[in-house]
């Protein structure tokens, strides 16, 4: 990270280490590659670029797991783990032949830099309020999670909120303490499956609003519908680059038709992370 000028760190979204290839830093305007002299270059073919060796990846995963791969078995089996501060590390490699199937012979690491952008959801909060069902839509690296975190902070300051943070990248809890500001009235459930977490939160914490990231499976939809039936409102993110793409997704259609979400927030994309392109009322559509 020392190679990244301070002025450019705010824009850095990913650091990618791929075995046998140059170490890449992802910015909204493209990739840059680390050179032996400690500078970044736009040219991947530059002979000066540092090539990532297999032992570097193994040592990196080992150190990131606190020299305890066994304590991260579950996450490594799923191909990711989260560092203190909410940095999500995606891992690829060969699945071991043990019953647990943890990864070994790592081939790539992807550090997704988490950051709090305070105020990025203020416009959404002002226009939708905390009584709306909000669906935040965007493509890869569009800042969906960042927007959801800020929205959670705003809603969690005015009503009872539950945050289902399956991968611990929104609240970045450490020892039960959220290291990101997610609101003073927010209860955080981390490490559990989204669908299980939603039902558990409804049963135990009586939230007025539930936040969850990246809804994707029919089980998620079932759990959301069940909780919505109990009068809970939802704010969630979903992968969709545009409103038209959103409406092609069955899970989104189902939840919108059921009236769970009243507003869709479309983000601009990876070129302008966390920036809102459009806030659309869904009541008319449904």
């Amino acid at each position, binding site marked *: 990270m020392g190679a990244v000028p301070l002025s450019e760190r705010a824009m850095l979204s990913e650091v990618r280490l791929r075995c046998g290839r140059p170490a890449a830093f992802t910015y909204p305007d493209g990739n840059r590659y680390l050179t032996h002299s400690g500078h970044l270059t736009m040219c991947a073919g530059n002979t000066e670029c540092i090539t990532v060796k297999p032992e570097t990846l193994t040592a990196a995963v080992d*150190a990131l797991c606190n*020299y305890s791969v*066994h*304590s991260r078995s579950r996450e490594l089996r799923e191909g990711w783990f989260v560092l203190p501060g909410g940095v999500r590390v995606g891992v690829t490699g060969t699945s071991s032949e043990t019953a*647990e199937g943890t990864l070994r012979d790592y081939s790539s690491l992807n550090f997704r830099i988490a950051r709090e952008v305070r105020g990025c959801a203020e416009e959404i909060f002002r226009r939708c309020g905390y009584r709306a069902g909000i669906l935040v839509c965007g493509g890869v690296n569009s800042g969906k999670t960042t927007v959801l975190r800020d929205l959670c902070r705003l809603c969690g300051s005015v009503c009872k909120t539950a945050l289902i943070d399956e991968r611990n990248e929104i609240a970045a809890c450490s020892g039960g303490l959220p290291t990101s500001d997610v609101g003073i009235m927010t209860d955080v459930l981390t490490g559990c499956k989204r669908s299980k977490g939603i039902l558990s939160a409804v049963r135990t914490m009586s939230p007025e609003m539930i936040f969850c990231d990246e809804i994707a499976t029919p089980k998620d939809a079932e759990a959301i519908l069940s909780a919505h039936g109990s009068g809970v409102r939802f704010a969630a993110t979903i992968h969709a680059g545009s409103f038209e793409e959103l409406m092609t997704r069955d899970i989104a259609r189902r939840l919108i038709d059921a009236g769970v979400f009243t507003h869709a927030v479309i983000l601009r994309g990876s070129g302008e992370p966390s920036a809102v392109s459009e806030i659309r009322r869904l009541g008319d559509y449904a």
Partner: protein
Amino acid sequence: MLRILAALMFTFAGAFAGGAFSFRLRERREVCRCIGLLLDEAAVGIRCRGADVYELSEIFRSSPGLSALTFLEGLPEHYEPGRDFRGQWREALSGQQLPEDEFQLLSEFGEIIGKTDTEGQLSIIEGLKERLGRITVSREEAYSQKGRMYRSVGVLFGVMAGILVV
């Protein structure tokens, strides 16, 4: 009178030397017991709590039954950037006066701890425990056979030397 005192001193010296040899054998048996306990603690910590190596170090240090393994005091309490836990384990273990087999076993444990998933760690610990079992049997036998012999021979030589002096 002086000769009798000298004879008594020789007898005591012989008994002391025999006792010291026997004590050393007993210590080896104690080290094996401690390593067995350490492996048990590690297995429980990994299986039940998913404890990382630093948490395991804390468990080892706070366990009263492991006091004979003084190198545990030299293990780090927290993750230190740029410092490999296994290197720190090697460093802590390097100055220890331990029998060769036990030293080897602890070195191997330090090299492999945290390198695999839970299942792998537990199988490795199981393998080390089996090996430790064999070492323990030989230490037990050595203590029960040679320990008694050292004590008897020590006293015997002391008495013989005493008689010669008298």
